[in-house]
Structures are given as structure tokens and as C-alpha cells.
């Protein structure tokens, strides 16, 4: 155990503070597959994974492809008494068309399509040069900050469950069946969860620190 006088003497750059409880630690990077957990509140501080960067980029690419595909295919089909209809994501997002409900349309479109795709694109932009050990691309820090801020507003997985609930709700009114976009959203749910679990934020910030400085040096040279 490091004693407290030691922490007082350390350079701030060698320290890490728990964002939940403010407990102060000296940075000791754990081995791959292990985690450094805050002893006071249990928050995971550092959790490096082998080749996590590449896996996360792949998952982000999958998110972009699945979401774009899901926009154009129908995700639910309905039929009753000879009438039928199928809905795509765009139909759903634009369901609230009159007056103040139009705001809701735009919000739904943002929550289930725009925000998840934007997060994936930002993630690819930030991580790609780091994975190949290149200097960070310009604006990488702002990009990663925005991606982190958008996290709670990415709701594709909630929408997937919403489809299932809708199916149950109109079961007595008409026959419903899932279209291809529903299964894309189901896969997307898993992809997004993995993407968030594998991302070691501390490692990204630390690498960005180094690579942004390097990019500035090469720009001067």
C-alpha cells in the first residue's frame, strides 16, 4: 500500500482520482484482463483488454452498418381483415407529425438513429490512429468528449424492447410479425453493450494525451 505522504509528494500526472468518490490513487496500470477498482466505492478505474481498440472499432463499424440497414427495412408488419402495413424506423420517427409532436419525432429519430451512429463514427475517428500507433487526428479530444457525453442518449437497445412491447399491445387488434430491421436492432443491442464494456476510458485519455502531443510535435517539425 502506498502511504498518504507518498501521495502528497507525487506529481499530479502520476495520480488518478475516482470520479464517483474522489478517492486518490497512484496510477498502477493493471495487466490485460485485470481491473483496477476503487477500494472505497467499487468503481472500475482502469480495465485494459488485449486488442480492445481494434475490437471496438469493428463493433462501431457494425453499429453504423446495422443502423443504416435498419433505417430502410421494415421492422414490424401488421395485418388484419385484409389490410396490411409495415413500418420502418423512418415511419416511426416521423409518426408524430402535427404541431408540438413534431419535436418528438425529431427526438425519437435522434435517440434511435442519429446518436448511436454519431457515437460510433466519433469512436472510429478517435481510436483508428491510436490502434495503428499513429499521432491522433485533429480534434480527437473533443470527439471523444462528445462521444462520452452522448452515451446516455443512445437508445437503440431500448427501441428494440419497445418493438416487442408494441407487438404484445396490439396482439388482439391485429397480427404482427417482426421484419428484418427488428433482428438488426436486436443484434445492435448486444453490439452497443459490448462496445461500452470493452472501452477503457482511462487508457484512451492517457493515449490521447501522448498522441496529441506527438501530433503537435510533428506539425511543428
Amino acid at each position, binding site marked *: *500500500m*502506498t502511504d498518504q505522504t507518498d*501521495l*502528497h509528494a507525487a506529481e*499530479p*500526472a502520476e*495520480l*488518478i*482520482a*475516482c*470520479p*464517483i*468518490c*474522489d*478517492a*486518490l*490513487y*497512484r496510477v*498502477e496500470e493493471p495487466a490485460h*484482463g*485485470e*481491473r*483496477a*477498482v476503487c*477500494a*472505497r466505492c*467499487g468503481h472500475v478505474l*482502469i*480495465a485494459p*483488454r488485449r486488442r480492445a481498440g481494434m475490437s471496438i472499432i469493428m463493433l462501431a463499424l457494425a453499429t453504423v452498418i446495422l443502423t443504416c440497414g435498419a433505417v430502410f427495412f421494415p421492422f*414490424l408488419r*401488421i395485418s*388484419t*381483415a385484409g*389490410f*396490411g*402495413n409495415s*413500418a420502418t424506423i423512418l415511419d*416511426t420517427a*416521423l*409518426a*408524430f407529425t402535427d404541431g*408540438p*409532436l413534431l419535436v*418528438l419525432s425529431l427526438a*425519437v429519430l435522434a*435517440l434511435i438513429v442519429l446518436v448511436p451512429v454519431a457515437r460510433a463514427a466519433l469512436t472510429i475517428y478517435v481510436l483508428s490512429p491510436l490502434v495503428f500507433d499513429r499521432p491522433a487526428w485533429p480534434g480527437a*479530444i473533443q470527439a471523444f*468528449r462528445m462521444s462520452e457525453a452522448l452515451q*446516455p442518449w443512445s*437508445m437503440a437497445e*431500448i427501441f428494440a424492447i*419497445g418493438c416487442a*412491447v*408494441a407487438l404484445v*399491445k396490439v396482439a388482439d*387488434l391485429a397480427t404482427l410479425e417482426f421484419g428484418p430491421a427488428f433482428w438488426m436492432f436486436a443484434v445492435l443491442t448486444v453490439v452497443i453493450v459490448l462496445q461500452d464494456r470493452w472501452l477503457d*476510458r*482511462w487508457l484512451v*485519455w492517457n493515449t490521447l494525451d501522448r498522441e496529441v502531443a506527438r501530433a503537435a510535435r510533428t506539425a511543428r517539425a
Partner: protein
Amino acid sequence: MSGEEALTARDAGLVACRRCTRVWPRGRERCGRCGARLVSRDPGSLSRVWAWWVAGLMAYVPANIYPMLITDTLVSRSEATIVGGAIELIQHDALGIAIIILIASVGIPIGKFVAVAYLALSVQNPARLNAHRRHHLLEVVEYIGRWSMIDVFVVAILSALVQLSVVARIDPGPAALAFALSVVFTMLAAQAFDPRLIWDRIEADAEADGPEGRSADEAGPTPRGEQA
């Protein structure tokens, strides 16, 4: 200083960035790594929590008064509020679905209002639950908060899908917008909460809890290593 009281960045005369966990000397205004604004303890945190909390509650009232779904079929037209829709389901012997809807649209939102208010009050007053429990409560509120949006999505899906000329059509009611706003406001209330405020009172709470509270957790100045 008692055993479970870990050395914090504030104790060491430093200020921590909550976004990227970098530590800076006290007095610095912005994080040199990620650019976030630095505050040792956010003094405006609680007033923002309460502001979003009140806004969320104000949006939740019309969400329950106005209809959420307007259903037109060949024979009838019905306007269902959140609770009204659930009662209708019970009358149609769909008790299970009614319970799910009541939990998602009534139980969880009200639970969130109570939990956020309790957490905000607990920072100013001695709390019954220890810091660990309250931290879990905040995590649960932040996690579940997003899921309340499911009802808005269901309304959007049904309105887009059930447009079968004269046979049946479903349209959204004004409550959908109010409910969505209520969810967004309560999410912002939970995000505005500075969780470090919960842990700052750990010493006072340990005294209130008695001896069991004191030995409940042991924290040292090194993080625990753990197999993932």
C-alpha cells in the same frame, strides 16, 4: 481520520477531473487533458438537480392527465391515458401486460422522483442508508431512467404501424410529449448529481450508523486489483 475514510483529491489539495480522472493542482479552472470544467465539489449541483426534478414532475402531471394513445376502430374511438390504458387491459384479462405497463410508466417514474429527492436530501441531512447503498441507488436511477423512454417508443411504433384506413388506426396523444419530457428531465436531474457529495458525508454517516457502519468497508489508498 477513521479507517474507511480514504484520502481524497480534495484532502490532498488537488482537484480531479470527473470526465477523464486526471488530477490537477487546486485552483485550475479547466482540465488540461479533456478540457472539462474543474470543480472540487460542484456547488451548483444540488440546485440543478432540484430544478430538473421539479421540471420532470411538472411534465409528469400532464403525462397522466392527457391521453397517450387515441385508437380508432370500425366500431369505436377510445382515448387512453397511461393508467386508463392499463385498466382497460385488466378488463380484457391481460393482467400481466397491465402490470408491466404500470411498472414502466407509473412505478419507475415515481420511484425515480422519490429516489432522486432522497439522494439530494441525504447530502444535506444525515442519511439512513450508508454511502454504498446510496451510490447503488444513484446508479440504478441513472440506469433505469433511460428505460422509461420505452413507452414513448411504443406509442411511436404503434402510431406508425397501425394506420389501416378504416379498420383501425392509432394516433399519439399529447401525453406522449409530456411523458418524453418528463423522462429527459429526470435523466438530467440524475446526471446533475455530483456523486462525490454522497461520499463526503461518509464519516458523519458512519457515526450515525454506529459501529457496524464503521467496519462495513475498508478503503486504503491503493485500488483493488481484480480478475475481470
